[in-house]
Structure formats: structure tokens, C-alpha cells
């Protein structure tokens, strides 16, 4: 366990170094963060047009985090390009841990973006957040983030074998969450079977918890829904572990793990 945590730490440090070689906080703010905030504003404006600005604002402020959390899907190609995939597989550490560590920085980026959206946008749209419950917003966002991250890692484990499909997989993954998980319309808008599927996706329960929190709903609802969200995350984590093992096994069998790039 200590070993695993150390691997997680060092691969997170490495990804931080790579991330900061790519972004400065200024470029991150003016390109990435602003792009996400504009997206939230766009949906909030639609919300204003149809008279449910708070619903769409809250939903989308949480949803933008899913994009970052799913960026972990793209990292597989990086390992192949730099020729480190074979070395990673041949190292005596769990592949999933290494991989999760390498995407952690994007999860942090997403959580920060989401929290920023909650800080900046509600006053602009005249949405009121109850005090002091609003202090729990970052906690809920982190919970949703973790479970989206596990979901992303699970998709990543499949994309590892099909690196050409990585962008497609990324977009479909987070757009599915944004479309069906109660971001813009309540989940009971959808047919029954969709709703059943959606309750196994991340974000659904987390958003329910968030909306209950903001509407001064019962604490029990908030807690149950957060726990459900984390359970969903854990299930995706388990699937990701299985998926990674399968992909590595498949790579070892068909010889697609190359020395070099």
C-alpha cells in the first residue's frame, strides 16, 4: 500500500511537471478555464431564456469538471508515443496506479475550474447559494470528480488498445454524462431504461446531492447521494482495474507493446 501511494505520488509529480511545462497559470486561466466558464455561461443563458437559470447553472458548473476528469483517456497515447508503455508494463508496479497518478493533475484542474465557476458565476446570474452550506460545494465537487475520474480511467483502459479512437472516446464519455446525468434536465425526463443506466454513471447522484444541498434539502439526502456517487466511482474503479489487466494481457499476447515508439 505504501508502495502504491509512492507510485501515485511520483507519477502525479511527473504529470505536474509535464502539465506546467505546457501551461502557466496565466495560459491555463485564459485559455482553458475561460473556455469552461463560457460554456457554463452559455447554458446558464439558455436557462435564463426558459426560466430555470439556477438548474442549468449548477448542473453545468459541475459538469465542466467531467471534461478534465476524462482527459485521463488521452494519456494512453502519450505513453505509446514516448515509448514508455513497454517500460511501464515491465516495471514491478501496478499499471493502474501509475496511470491514475499521471492523470491526477487534470482532475485537480477540473475541480479547481468547477469551484471557480461556483465562486464567480452565481452572483452574475443572480443565483443565491445558501450559507454556510456552500462551503461543502468543493467537497461534493471533489467526490463527483473522483468518480468521474474512475469512469475516465475505465474508458482509458479500453482506449489503450485503440489509441486512434482516443479523442472520440473522450468526447463521447463526457458528453454522455453531460447529456443524460441530470445536468440540464432532471433524469426523470428520460425513459425508464435510460434512467436505470444513468444511475450507474458518475455525476448523477453527485448532482442530486449538490442540488439538495443548495436547495437546503435534508442532510440525509445529501449524504446518501454522495455515498452512492462514491460507490459508483468505486465500481468504475474496479472495472478500470479489470480493463487495464485485460488490455495489458492482450498487448502481451498480440505483441502490440513495442520497445521504443
Amino acid at each position: 500500500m505504501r508502495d502504491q501511494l509512492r507510485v501515485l505520488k511520483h507519477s502525479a509529480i511527473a504529470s505536474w511537471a509535464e502539465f506546467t511545462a505546457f501551461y502557466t497559470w496565466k495560459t491555463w486561466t485564459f485559455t482553458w478555464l475561460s473556455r469552461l466558464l463560457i460554456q457554463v455561461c452559455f447554458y446558464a443563458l439558455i436557462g435564463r431564456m426558459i426560466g430555470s437559470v439556477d438548474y442549468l447553472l449548477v448542473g453545468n458548473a459541475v459538469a465542466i469538471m467531467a471534461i478534465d476528469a476524462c482527459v485521463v483517456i488521452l494519456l494512453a497515447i502519450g505513453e505509446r508515443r514516448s515509448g514508455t508503455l513497454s517500460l511501464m508494463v515491465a516495471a514491478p508496479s501496478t499499471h493502474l496506479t501509475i496511470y491514475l497518478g499521471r492523470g491526477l493533475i487534470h482532475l485537480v484542474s477540473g475541480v479547481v475550474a468547477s469551484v471557480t465557476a461556483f465562486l464567480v458565476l452565481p452572483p452574475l446570474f443572480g443565483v443565491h447559494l445558501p450559507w454556510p452550506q456552500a462551503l461543502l460545494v468543493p467537497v461534493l465537487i471533489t467526490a463527483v470528480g473522483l468518480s468521474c475520474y474512475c469512469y475516465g480511467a475505465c474508458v482509458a483502459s479500453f482506449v489503450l488498445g485503440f489509441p486512434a479512437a482516443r479523442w472520440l472516446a473522450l468526447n463521447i464519455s463526457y458528453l454522455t454524462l453531460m447529456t443524460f446525468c441530470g445536468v440540464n434536465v432532471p433524469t426523470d425526463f428520460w425513459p425508464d431504461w435510460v434512467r436505470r443506466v444513468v444511475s450507474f454513471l458518475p455525476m448523477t447522484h453527485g448532482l442530486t446531492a449538490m442540488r439538495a444541498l443548495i436547495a437546503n434539502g435534508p442532510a440525509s439526502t445529501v449524504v446518501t447521494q454522495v455515498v452512492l456517487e462514491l460507490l459508483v466511482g468505486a465500481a468504475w474503479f474496479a472495472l478500470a482495474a479489470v480493463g487495464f489487466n485485460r488490455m495489458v494481457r492482450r498487448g502481451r499476447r498480440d505483441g502490440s507493446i513495442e520497445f521504443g515508439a
Partner: protein
Amino acid sequence: MRAFLAGVRIQFWLIRRQPDDLLTLCTIPFTAVIMLSVVIHAIRPDLVTNALLAPALIGLWGFSIGLAGEVIESERWVGTLNPSLAAPTEMHSVYFGRIMAVMGLGVIPLGETWLLG
């Protein structure tokens, strides 16, 4: 004109080899479903046309901004921008060709949402 056509051709060729670039086309159905669900849930049938038009416009916009920018960006990435700026043919028309090809593809989303409607 020859350079322009060469630009168009090279761009289509690159996109064919890198299906990722066609991504915007796949995101449109999702955006359309989101928009539609919002207006239907709000019981605002008057907005359905808008809900269908918006993703198309977003598609066109995202496609042209994203890709046209990327044409120049990726060219620099591959390291061909500098030599081609110094090349005798007028490279501007090659770029213009490539960017127009991208914009041309950007029109597909319009048809796509129209079909969905």
C-alpha cells in the same frame, strides 16, 4: 489556384488519416439532444427550431475555429511552417486552401442537425 487546390487536397488527406479531426461531427448529436431536452422539458415548442439550429452553428464555429487554428498550429508542430514560409510558391494560398477545406467540412453539421430535426 494550383496551390489553393493542393492545400484543399492535403487537408482532406490529413483528415482522412486522422479521424479524430472529424470529431465535431460526432459531438453535434449530443449537443442537439441536450438542447432539445432542455426546451422540451421547459415545454417551449417555439424554441425547438432554435434548439436544432444552435448545435449546427456551434459545430460550424467550433470546427472552423478549432481546426483552422490547428492547421497552422500543427504545421508549426511538424516544423514545416518555417521552410514553407520561405518556399517560392505563395504558401498563403496553400493555407487558405487548407482552411477553406476545413470550413467546407464545417457545413456538414448544418445538414446533420437538419436531418435530426
